[in-house]
């Protein structure tokens, strides 16, 4: 038997509301199948399962709000019998509020407590838990509420209470140490608002992620002006004769160029967590998409380096459409290993991004516009250019490599036919 748990669909997701089951007890499921729809702070997400099996029991009912890591359902592995599985059934874990990012400390049964030991308020012994099981942050309820109010990530705090528990004083110290605590906008009211108040939730999620980013990630920033004459010409030719619906956009070229450039710069593509960098295995580009009612989401476009432009373009259009409709898939919410933001449409000169943790870089594109340019021969001319930016995590990479990455990006955009 195995458990199907609520996955984290992004660093800023602590909990989700189960909207709908797409399977029932007794149904056979296959790897990659959408089995449930979960409402996060950002959107209603289709949740896929990554193991074949048969649903034994649904543990959470539609409408329930549960923390990340909660067992949603138990399933039988292929060939397994229900009776044998039930014998080893385990109770559903207690619901919690916080992201589960601390080493587990499960109290061991103490013989003294059975005998009525009066002077031991909390279990003193702690045993390590099997790797893979999820640990709750050891934090007092009052401290948890305070941290939520302040928008603090409790996983990053150090506890001074009994058995290393995080106390109110620890949260207040951490809050005081922040340069600008008033920028954390989350309030208890927002935290408990109904999921329908999505704008508030999205704002809170963005606030939490961006505050964490600026708090934890030592950003460095690089800018590069890239001539876009060849790319524009190539695009105009490629779109000639195409119906409007299948026309390529510059954004698709830029995404593809970023994905290809990353092949030689793995230190910009991946995740920084628990004090170390884990490079991503593929180029899943988070595409920053603004929402009509405000806020933004950066869902992943998968394997961008592998996609021909004719596939990439409709995939991008579909992603934008589904993002704005609020129907993203779990993998799209969780997989992005770097973000690309393009504010050229809004006419800005350049955009210097804030990294979305635990990613380690964000690439920004401003407006493609005709600007004065000095060509290779030293002559002044007017060519379309774009300012590309890189904001990257200095714990993982350095400006030298970042500069080489932007140069690579520039060269790739000079050869649009190869993209």
């Amino acid at each position, binding site marked *: 038997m195995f458990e199907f748990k609520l996955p984290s669909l992004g660093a800023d997701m602590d909990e989700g509301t189960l909207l709908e089951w797409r399977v029932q007890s007794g149904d056979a499921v296959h790897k990659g199948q959408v089995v449930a729809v979960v409402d996060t702070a950002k959107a209603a997400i289709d949740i896929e399962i990554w193991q074949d099996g048969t649903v034994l029991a649904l543990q959470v009912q539609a409408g329930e709000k549960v923390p990340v890591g909660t067992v949603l359902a138990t399933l039988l592995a292929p060939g397994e019998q229900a009776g044998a599985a039930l014998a080893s059934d385990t109770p559903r874990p207690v619901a919690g509020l916080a992201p589960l990012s601390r080493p587990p400390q499960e109290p061991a049964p103490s013989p003294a407590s059975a*005998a*009525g030991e*009066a*002077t*031991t*308020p*909390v279990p003193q012994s702690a045993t390590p838990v099997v790797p893979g099981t999820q640990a709750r942050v050891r934090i*007092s*309820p*009052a*401290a*948890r*509420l305070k941290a939520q109010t302040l928008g603090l990530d409790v996983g990053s705090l150090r506890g*001074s*209470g*009994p058995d290393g*528990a995080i*106390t*109110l*004083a620890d949260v207040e110290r951490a809050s005081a140490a922040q340069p600008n605590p008033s920028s954390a906008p989350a309030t208890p009211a927002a935290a408990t608002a109904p999921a329908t108040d999505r704008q508030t939730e999205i704002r809170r999620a963005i606030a939490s992620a961006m505050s964490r980013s600026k708090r934890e990630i030592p950003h460095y920033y690089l800018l590069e002006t890239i001539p876009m004459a060849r790319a524009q010409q190539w695009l105009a030719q490629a779109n000639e004769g195409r119906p409007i619906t299948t026309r390529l956009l510059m954004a698709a070229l830029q995404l593809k160029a970023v994905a290809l450039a990353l092949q030689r710069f793995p230190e910009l593509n991946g995740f920084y967590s628990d004090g170390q960098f884990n490079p991503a295995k593929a180029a899943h580009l988070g595409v920053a998409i603004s929402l009509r009612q405000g806020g933004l989401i950066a869902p992943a476009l998968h394997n961008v380096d592998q996609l021909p432009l004719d596939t990439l373009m409709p995939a991008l259009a579909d992603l934008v459409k589904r993002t704005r409709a609020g129907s993203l898939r779990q993998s799209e919410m969780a997989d992005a290993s770097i973000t690309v933001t393009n504010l050229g449409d809004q006419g800005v000169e350049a955009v210097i991004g804030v990294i979305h943790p635990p990613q380690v870089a964000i690439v920004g594109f401003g407006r493609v516009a005709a600007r004065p340019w000095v060509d290779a021969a030293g002559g002044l001319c007017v060519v379309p250019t774009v300012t590309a930016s890189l904001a990257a995590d200095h714990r993982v990479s350095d400006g030298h490599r970042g500069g080489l990455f932007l140069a690579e990006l520039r060269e790739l955009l000079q050869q649009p036919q190869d993209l």
Partner: protein
Amino acid sequence: MTRTTYREALRTAHREALLADPRVFIMGEDVGRYGGSYAVTMGLLAEFGEARVRDTPLSELGFVGAGVGAALGGMRPIVEIMTVNFSLLALDPIVNTAATLRHMSGGQFSVPLVVRMATGAGRQLAAQHSHSLENWYAHVPGIRVLAPATVADARGMLAPALADPDPVVIFEHALLYNLEEDLPDDWQCDISHAAVRRAGTQLSLITYGGSLPKTMQAAEALASEGIDVEVIDLRVLRPLDMDTIAASLRKTHRAVIVDEGWKSGSLAAEVMARLMEHCFYDLDAPVARVCSEEVPIPYARHMEEAALPQVPKIVATVKAVLNV
């Protein structure tokens, strides 16, 4: 302000009640000629006569039942039981009759009965005279349960208990009778609120009855080490005054409960449960408690002392909760 003892304060309150209302009378084992097992009613027989201060046979079932009947008949009886251990013989008239008749009669009958009894350990009287079973009574709807822990409450609680149209059970910890304190001039009190006996900021010590003096001593000891704790005296064990307790927790965020009862199914357990219900997001540490060891209270002095909540245990538990 006058200096007096808990015993004298009780006696004065009883005398005043007998003088104030001809319906009031006292009965119980040895309350008359002997003057009461703890000398609370000493001298009252001579002053008020056998009709008002009545010695009874050794039958808790009988004389508590008679008290219920007298209350139903319009009297205001005060029934004294030697210890809570013996009151188990009177559970039927108290729990099955006194506590239920208002409800079972659709409000036609009330039972204005006051039952007083000694409780608690500390005098080497062994396991049949030393237990703290206040929680048995605090469990039961239909009765009010009081635990005067100061001279002022000993003086002040009897009159409102007699004025209550429903049964009231009063627990007097045996170690408190010799307690000597200043009786303030405004000793009148209600029988519905807990009291903050000492204001503090870092932790709430919640206790009642005979554990209050130990808890106050522990608070003093902690203060000398720079730890500032609040002490809440429950006073009323049923119904619990959660407003006072919750207000304290909102300030201190931590609590230790000191209860001479055993942990299992105790008043301490009830207070803890209500803290979870009412104050969960105010709590900054697991609530802890200091209770009696889960053994029949021993006879030998050193073992009896080891079995009961003591000042060093309270201090150590507070420090563990504060992690200092």
